[in-house]
């Protein structure tokens, strides 16, 4: 048992060293920017995992929360507010929005909730598109001020990379703590059987609402960092297509698995870029890859190692 824990720790340490030294090998350009976007996606997918992976609520509104965080940050910093205030503002806006959406709708189940969250995403998109004086409409907002804490902030993509690594690490730690708390167990119980959970004294509506709000906070903070690091936002980055992509990242990575969220986000952000050499055919291979993972590893990419281990043990 102790040996296995030691092995895990060594593997994690090696992984951390590898991740921290990537910028030494890659130049400050395409690769780093891509990894930055993958990390932002990972934070959003970690948030989605609370409601969908652990609580079993199908949520297609995550891209809209991501967009709300990004637009709040962009509008606030362009209006002259200090950057330090924007994560708090982004969180306030997404919490308010998740309460407005969650309170009346989280009693709905399965595809009814999915339909409602799709509608929410579309409402947010339409507001962004048509409220042009504030949101820039379909042209988006550009020249967004960057991250700045008392005059200091990351310059260039490599420095942003380290900031995002740190934020992702905190996001993972928070998710781990929540998973092992009473709330985390209530989420899993709600997913397994709402009736059974209620019989055991779990307030499932409250649990679902909390999962929804925590997920929205993750998305809102990621949106805040997206706007401040990419420094341009437009509605197409937070559309329904993005919502489906986030859900696919969760499913392909491994629903309910923290590692799966990161693997799924990294895989589906990097894979289309890695397949660019195929020209227009890359979408075919990309789609086939997603289908293969779903069919052969229903638990997602994160489950592959344990599946292999189990099969090997069975063969013995």
């Amino acid at each position, binding site marked *: 048992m102790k040996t296995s824990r030691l092995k895990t720790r060594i593997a994690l340490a090696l992984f951390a060293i590898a991740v921290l030294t990537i910028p030494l090998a890659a130049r400050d350009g395409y690769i780093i920017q891509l990894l930055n976007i993958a990390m932002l996606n990972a934070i959003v997918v970690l948030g989605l995992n609370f409601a969908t992976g652990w609580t079993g609520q199908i949520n297609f509104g995550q891209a809209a929360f991501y967009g709300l965080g990004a637009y709040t940050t962009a509008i606030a910093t362009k209006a002259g507010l200090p950057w330090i205030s924007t994560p708090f503002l982004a969180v306030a806006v997404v919490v308010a929005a998740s309460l407005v959406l969650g309170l009346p709708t989280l009693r709905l189940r399965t595809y009814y909730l999915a339909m409602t969250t799709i509608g929410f995403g579309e409402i947010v998109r339409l507001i962004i598109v048509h409220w042009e004086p504030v949101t820039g409409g*379909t*042209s988006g907002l*550009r020249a967004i001020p960057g991250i700045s804490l008392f005059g200091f902030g990351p310059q260039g993509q490599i420095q942003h990379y380290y900031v995002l690594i740190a934020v992702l690490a905190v996001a993972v730690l928070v998710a781990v703590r929540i998973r092992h708390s009473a709330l985390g167990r209530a989420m899993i119980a709600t997913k397994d059987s709402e009736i059974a959970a209620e019989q055991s004294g779990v307030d499932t509506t409250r649990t679902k609402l909390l999962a929804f709000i925590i997920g929205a906070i993750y998305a809102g903070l990621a949106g805040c960092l997206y706007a401040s690091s990419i*420094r341009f936002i437009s509605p*197409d980055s937070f*559309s329904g*297509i993005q919502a489906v992509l986030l859900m696919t990242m969760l499913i392909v990575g491994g629903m309910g698995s923290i590692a799966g969220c990161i693997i799924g986000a990294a895989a589906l952000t990097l894979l289309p870029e890695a397949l660019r050499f195929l020209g227009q055919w890359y979408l075919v291979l990309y789609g086939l890859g997603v289908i293969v993972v779903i069919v052969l590893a229903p638990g997602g990419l994160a489950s592959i190692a344990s599946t292999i281990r189990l099969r090997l043990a069975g063969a013995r």
Partner: protein
Amino acid sequence: MQMLQNSFKSAIVGAAVICLSAGVARESKADAASCASPIPLGLTTALTGNLALLGTQARNGVEFAVDEINANGGIAGKKLALTTEDTGASSTDALNAMNRILEGKPLIIFGSMISPHIFAQTVGVTKSETPFLVGATNAKVTAQGSKWLFRTHVHDGQLADLIPEYLVKSLGKTKPGIMAVADDYGLGASKGIQAALAKLNATPAAVTSYAPSDKDMSAQLLEIKDKGADSLILFGRPADVTLVIKQMNDLGIKLTTIGNASMVAQTTLNNLSAAEADGGYAIGGMIPQTSTDTKILDWAKRVQEKYKVPADNFTVSYYDTVYMLKSIIEKVGCDKPAIRDALAATKDWKGMLIYYQADARGDLAHTLGIYRNKGKTPELAGPIKESGF
């Protein structure tokens, strides 16, 4: 002695002239010869997703010109090497595509006609100090303050001014309904059209829009009809313009309709009957099929044979852009600031259908075409120029 002195002077002057001209010749050769071989060019455009129909026209125009130039020996004997990256439909993907193109350190980058993608890419390209030639139609694209960005296609601001002017002054309609696609292209134009109508003391009967993915626009059409519009200004993409015209016909709404180049695009006309298409007006970039020049018609035919889609105003614009750059590189070589300065100084450069002239913002196209469909055949009613050009 005097004769000898004169001969000596003449010899020196003659030698100096020869040396000077040899030097000049060597310098102009050196300019073109300084280019890398092959000369690297980058293009980012939408080849997949819901904007692919538009984005491929940029690819077709650039690629067709590059292939022609290479087949004819390249520029000063150097072939052009075009790298194309797909932006998909999202600005984030457009940014990734541009970062990838920048890694290849191209001499010139062509951007697509999708304005949000260009807004996302401009900062990075400007930092790299690479001439950036785009066809994006949002008027604000060239107002970003980048010295490296140039546009070689007409923009929504020009259309928004000229469509109401033609409708009111030439067609005598003063109460139009406005219908625009609710994206960067349509909504920007709709606002401009409303402002231009106000200047002409004309009030729109109704202002409506539809989402890019909408398939039923009958509610908006009925609103326009019910509010007593005497005409329709229609601003959209070929696929949705086709649907609007078909639904107008189904609802029995007969209004003089004027719109952007989608009204006369081959992809629109291919899906309409002659009766549905007949009488529609458009103002927009120059489309090759309306030309009477056999060379241009032959070019359009060759493009269609190669890519299986008809060439449109964007294909012409991107094709012209490559040839414009060829002429600039032949003059100033492959020095990026020199190319940028030459682009900014462009005056009366003759393209396939129009002359290009740079203004202070970096806009090079100022001539548009007025078209009218005769059955399914668009006819050029005449060119119309932006005021001041």
